[in-house]
């Protein structure tokens, strides 16, 4: 797998790559050294039929469809071209009579036991077996005996069904499970023609990645429960898009029929997802189809949300916001934005900061990281992380939060090319293959980071010195990428960000990959949806003059974050020090596709804040996510219903495809902001989606040069912002992408990826360099800081503001020491939780677990509670009784629970105090 990655275009491609020359069907062909014949032939335009071969997995050579004649010491012999490397001087014949006879024979053999139920098979119409039988087979079978039968179908997981009689034993699914996902829960049983894929007794295929096995199945043996018998492929229409279920940004084909999404398929984007998707991303579309959608603007009248016209709703919002701003614009706060497109995020930022003048805008809900850190730390790409010497994980469980990033890193680690150093309060899915796992108590992240880079620093209590020494060694040399996220939602994000800042200061060559989970949260932050910043990764104060040139107004001072807005709205009792202006209370809250009640780690603060706000507007798409406190609800289009762009964890900007017409009167998010501005007697100056993007490209410094034509030319792989500093720029493949319709059956237009650019570039076989793009933009040489670009201070136009750098101070709070009776809480995330996307997707909603509280076994012993027994978890303000299990990975006096999941009738959010550096609690017997 690892070698395979390296051999692929785009991944460490050197000009001085070793090549071999061989003869393919009588002509000279050049292959990369070590390249398999099947791949070399394909690049040379000769397609060799295959079933088991998959470019993203190891070769097994079992289907025998790709047999070709290869010259050898004993004459030409039939060899599997997926298993034989191209060697210098080899003579390969893919068209001889012998090859043709072998191919005919293999196809006839495959059809011996394969039922000819194509008319009722979901794969019919996009089936590699069907297609290759047409292209290569003998046409007619001589098999007159009875075929084998199996009970059909059997569930291999909650989401995947298996019709064993259709299986051709190619082992794609079992290989995916074992080598890509690392979850070898399906395998062959039996032998001979009785061989079948199955699960182990009483152990379902419980992988988060099970849907990929369905997608790569070359026959109709594996089907996904939501798609089984749902459609015929020729009735489906497709657009390419980017999955925004999390922030990895997997490329997807969205396929629909009759204005309903029928399925999502992964597209092989070399820098991002390699064709894989997680099951949440793949199946959460059900929420778009079947979730109860908000289809009309509504206003609360006599306690009831009542449908009104857009005009009435927007008038009401405008009135509410005007009166909330009576004491100053900071009386209005905007919470959320990660569900918006980049264009929507920019439009709402411009409305909030550029029209209303409030800087209290925050796309994160107390579950993220300070924008200054996310935007200011040198950013890594996923490829840079995958090809680094060492990756430091200072984040939640990647398999739970950013599943496909987990796959990308895992494959490199188990391939032996990458070392993993994990800094986490508890074991994660990455722990088994991490070189070092350093456990820490919540609050000690920064101390641990300090100890990693400074021999003289004092070690946080409980740190294993040997593990620390190994972590130092692994991070001491070679490229290091730090994946930074939230190991615990009950630990202030600034504490983790401070740890990253320490590493960045000590190792200036270190790069960072933010493990923020919400769909387009990185795009929203880039578009300025955080206090203290403006669009394009610039500081509010640095960029005030630049934006003042075009915007009606620019906030006078930094605003509040989500926690601050809710504390202010809750009233003086909840207010605290650090509030930018305690005199201007937040009176109106605009919730942009977010609901603090479920999303904020601190449920009490969310409730008090919403209750305390005088006026609440919610832009929403799902009734399930509607706040009971909303005074006005504005219906917004969802994913797959709106075009635009999104930005992933790398800063990679890709285009979203619109496949559906939004239901009822739902509008694209940017349009709601523009229309609301007009009701506020302002003109946002944004008349079209393209217009919004043109303004982003013109004004947002980090997006300079990423014009619409650049985005179009970049295709599915997108462009990493900012162009000049990323060292990546346009990562469009220098050779055509895979033409292999067998690798990802069902994806219609894979060949479009890597197609020659249509606009803005010369037709060139080599990758367009970053420089070419940067100088191609308007205004000549524009480096990332833009310092060469602007005029002088005072006279003339204001300078393009510099991009944020490594923050000097994040204001991380001091963590008070605890007494020996006090534990600290770890609140982690699970992929399937009570969030709206899962709740409204029937296939996924059934998978939401109800995990117990986890406690260090000695602490449980001290308490006298047997594993599985109930414990009482008490904080200063709340308590709950829940079953507890022993987790030896946890340090002493650390209690772990999962956020946004049912817990003994309550929720861990009832205990979390978002205003404290860490949530402290006591463990007692109930």
């Amino acid at each position: 797998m690892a070698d395979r990655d390296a051999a692929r275009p785009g991944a460490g491609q050197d000009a001085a790559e070793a090549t071999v020359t061989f003869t393919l069907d009588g002509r000279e062909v050049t292959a990369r050294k070590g390249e398999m014949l099947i791949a070399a032939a394909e690049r040379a335009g000769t397609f060799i039929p295959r079933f088991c071969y998959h470019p993203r997995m190891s070769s097994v050579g079992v289907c025998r469809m790709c047999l070709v004649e290869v010259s050898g010491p004993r004459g030409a012999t039939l060899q599997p071209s997926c298993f034989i490397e191209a060697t210098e001087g080899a003579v390969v014949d893919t068209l001889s009579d012998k090859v043709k006879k072998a191919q005919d024979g293999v196809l006839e053999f495959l059809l011996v036991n394969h039922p000819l139920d194509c008319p009722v098979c979901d794969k019919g119409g996009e089936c590699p077996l069907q297609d290759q039988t047409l292209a290569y087979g003998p046409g007619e079978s001589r098999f007159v005996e009875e075929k084998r039968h199996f009970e059909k179908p059997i569930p291999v997981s909650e989401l995947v069904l298996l019709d064993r009689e259709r299986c051709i034993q190619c082992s794609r699914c079992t290989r995916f499970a074992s080598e890509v996902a690392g979850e070898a829960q399906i395998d062959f049983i039996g032998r001979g023609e009785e061989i079948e894929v199955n699960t182990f007794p009483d152990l379902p295929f419980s992988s988060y990645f099970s849907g990929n096995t369905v997608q790569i199945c070359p026959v109709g043996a594996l089907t996904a429960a939501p798609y089984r018998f749902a459609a015929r492929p020729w009735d489906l229409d497709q657009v390419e898009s980017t999955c925004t279920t999390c922030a990895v940004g997997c490329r997807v084909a969205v396929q629909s029929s009759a204005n309903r999404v029928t399925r999502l398929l992964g597209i092989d984007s070399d820098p991002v997802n390699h064709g894989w998707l997680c099951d949440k991303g793949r199946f959460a579309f059900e929420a778009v189809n079947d979730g109860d959608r908000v289809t009309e603007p509504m206003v609360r009248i006599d306690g009831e949300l009542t449908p009104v016209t857009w005009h009435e709703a927007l008038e009401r919002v405008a009135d509410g916001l005007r009166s909330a701003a009576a004491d100053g614009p900071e009386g209005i706060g905007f919470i959320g934005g990660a569900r918006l497109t980049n264009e929507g995020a920019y439009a709402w930022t411009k409305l909030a900061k550029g029209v209303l003048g409030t800087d209290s805008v925050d796309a994160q809900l107390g579950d993220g990281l300070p924008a200054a850190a996310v935007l200011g730390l040198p950013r890594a790409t996923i490829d840079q992380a995958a090809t680094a010497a060492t990756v430091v994980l200072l984040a939640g469980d990647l398999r739970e939060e950013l599943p496909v990033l987990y796959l990308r890193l895992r494959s490199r680690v188990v391939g032996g090319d990458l070392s993993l150093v994990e800094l986490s309060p508890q074991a994660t899915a990455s722990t088994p293959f991490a070189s070092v796992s350093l456990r820490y108590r919540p609050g000690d992240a920064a101390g641990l980071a300090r100890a990693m880079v400074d021999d003289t620093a004092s070690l946080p209590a409980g740190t294993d010195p040997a593990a620390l020494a190994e972590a130092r060694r692994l991070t001491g040399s070679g490229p290091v990428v730090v994946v930074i996220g939230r190991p615990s939602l009950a630990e202030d994000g600034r504490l983790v960000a401070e740890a990253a800042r320490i590493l960045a200061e000590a190792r200036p060559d270190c790069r960072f990959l933010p493990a923020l989970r919400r769909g387009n949260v990185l795009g929203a932050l880039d578009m300025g949806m955080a206090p203290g910043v403006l669009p394009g990764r610039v500081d509010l104060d640095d960029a005030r003059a630049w934006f003042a040139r075009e915007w009606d107004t620019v906030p006078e001072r930094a605003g509040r974050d989500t926690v601050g807005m809710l504390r202010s709205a809750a009233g003086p009792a909840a207010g605290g020090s650090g509030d930018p202006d305690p005199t201007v209370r937040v009176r109106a809250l605009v919730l942009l596709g977010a609901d603090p009640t479920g999303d904020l780690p601190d449920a009490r603060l969310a409730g008090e804040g919403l209750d305390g706000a005088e006026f609440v507007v919610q832009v929403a798409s799902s009734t399930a996510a509607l706040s009971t406190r909303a005074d006005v609800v504005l219906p917004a289009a969802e994913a797959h219903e709106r075009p635009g762009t999104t930005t992933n964890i790398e800063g990679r900007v890709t285009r979203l495809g619109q496949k559906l017409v939004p239901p009822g009167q739902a509008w694209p998010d940017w349009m709601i902001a523009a229309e609301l501005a007009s009701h506020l007697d302002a003109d946002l100056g944004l008349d079209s989606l393209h217009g919004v993007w043109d303004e982003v490209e013109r004004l947002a410094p980090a997006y300079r040069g990423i014009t619409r034509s650049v985005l179009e030319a970049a295709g599915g792989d997108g462009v990493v912002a900012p162009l000049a500093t990323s060292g990546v720029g346009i990562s469009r493949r220098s050779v055509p992408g895979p033409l292999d319709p067998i690798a990802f059956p069902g994806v219609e237009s894979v060949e479009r990826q890597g197609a020659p650019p249509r606009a803005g570039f010369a037709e060139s076989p080599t990758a367009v360099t970053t420089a070419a793009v940067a100088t191609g933009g308007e205004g000549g040489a524009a480096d990332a800081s833009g310092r060469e670009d602007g005029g002088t201070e005072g006279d003339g136009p204001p300078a393009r503001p510099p991009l944020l750098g490594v923050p000097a101070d994040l204001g991380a709070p001091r963590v008070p020491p605890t007494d020996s009776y006090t534990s600290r809480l770890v609140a982690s995330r699970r992929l399937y939780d009570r969030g709206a996307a899962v709740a409204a997707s029937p296939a996924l909603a059934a998978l939401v677990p109800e995990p117990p509280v986890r406690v260090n076994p000695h602490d449980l012993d001290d308490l006298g509670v047997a594993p599985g027994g109930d414990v009482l978890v008490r904080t200063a303000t709340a308590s709950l009784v829940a079953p507890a299990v022993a987790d030896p990975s946890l340090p002493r006096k650390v209690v772990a629970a999962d956020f946004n999941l049912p817990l003994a009738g309550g929720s861990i959010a009832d205990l979390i105090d978002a205003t404290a550096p860490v949530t402290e609690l006591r463990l007692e017997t109930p």
Partner: protein
Amino acid sequence: MAVTDAPRIVTSRIGFDDSHTLERFLATGGYEGLRKALTMTPEAVAHEVDAASLLGRGGAGFPAGRKWSMLRKNPVSYLVVNGDESEPATFKDHLLVERDPHQLVEGVLIAAYALQVSQVFVFLRGEFALGLERVQAALNDAYAHGAVGEDIFGSGFSVDVVLHPGAGAYICGEETALLESLEGKRGFPRIKPPFFPAAIGLYGEPTVVNNVETMSNLPWIIRHGGAAFAALGEGRSTGTRLFALAGHVRNPGVFEIEMVKTTFADLIHAPVLGGGIPHGRELKAFIPGGVSAPWFGPDQIDLPLGQDEVAAAGSMLGSGSVVVMDDHTCAVRAAWRITKFFSRESCGQCTPCREGSGWLERIMERIETGSGREEDLDLLLDVCDNIAPGLTWPPQQTTICVLGPSIPSSIGSAIQMFRDEFLVHIKEGGCPYG
């Protein structure tokens, strides 16, 4: 030709009731070969084996000494002994592991010394309940005796030998499937190239895989010298060899016979060997080297029992199993029975063998049970051709391992030698033999 008076090299002790015990072994020259080998250099030991021209007794017949010398250019990590003898009518290793387990252990230790490996795995067929018990007991005795383990016999050479029982799959006798199984995986053969055990073997390390009988010859060769072994037999086929004689003979069993000097006719008819065909019946056909080998007719009964001689006649000596069929044997049923075995034992990994074996079995069954069609004969041959292109001998293959191309041997032979018999089945709607 005749039955020669050659020395018994591997069966010298089997006349004793306690042949499997350490006491008997030591009383009959046991471990003398090992003790002698330990006084020699590893190269000298290997040289003796090379000089003996000991052909591998597992079926392929590759010279053991040459295999080792090729390998000793690079350090070998593991020696693996293949005792997964599972083919119908093949039972010569069965005798060796039950009746002379110490001889096997001694041979293994000599090989380990010659190859300078410190870890040996002996993979024995799981159904060999008594054999497993006795080899394990022999190993335990040998450890206690100082012949295995740390610093064996004070020589400074250390080696561990682990006995591993198979789990019932014939395919694990294929050496790369055996290695997979040893590694704890499904017994799926590996693709060669590149997974030749000598290059990428057990746990990815260079590995020698040798057969039980091959190992059992080593103590004698070291005690008496490679030249004494090479003086027996003729040409490349030196020494003696075990033949498992089965089928329609009065006296089936395992016989140690000097190679080349003896013919199939001797083996089948000599009173001290097979004792002839009972009930006054005539020879119809025989399989010279296990059920994967093409059949011979009575006209080839005077062929000598030599590897190259049998190969030149279009079949193989293989694993040393000779199956005799008298003239009351239904060729269709015999070939069907063999096909059924391979179909059951196909590992299911690669397409032509998995699907082809079952298909062939069904066609054969149909012909035998009276539902055959004339075109089935061409169909059988063409399906066979799609597994072993050209139907040549030795076969080419579209499969990963040689199990697949073993199937066409009996079907091809039966059709070629007894085409009329097939046609009778088809025309009369059933088996004329009842």
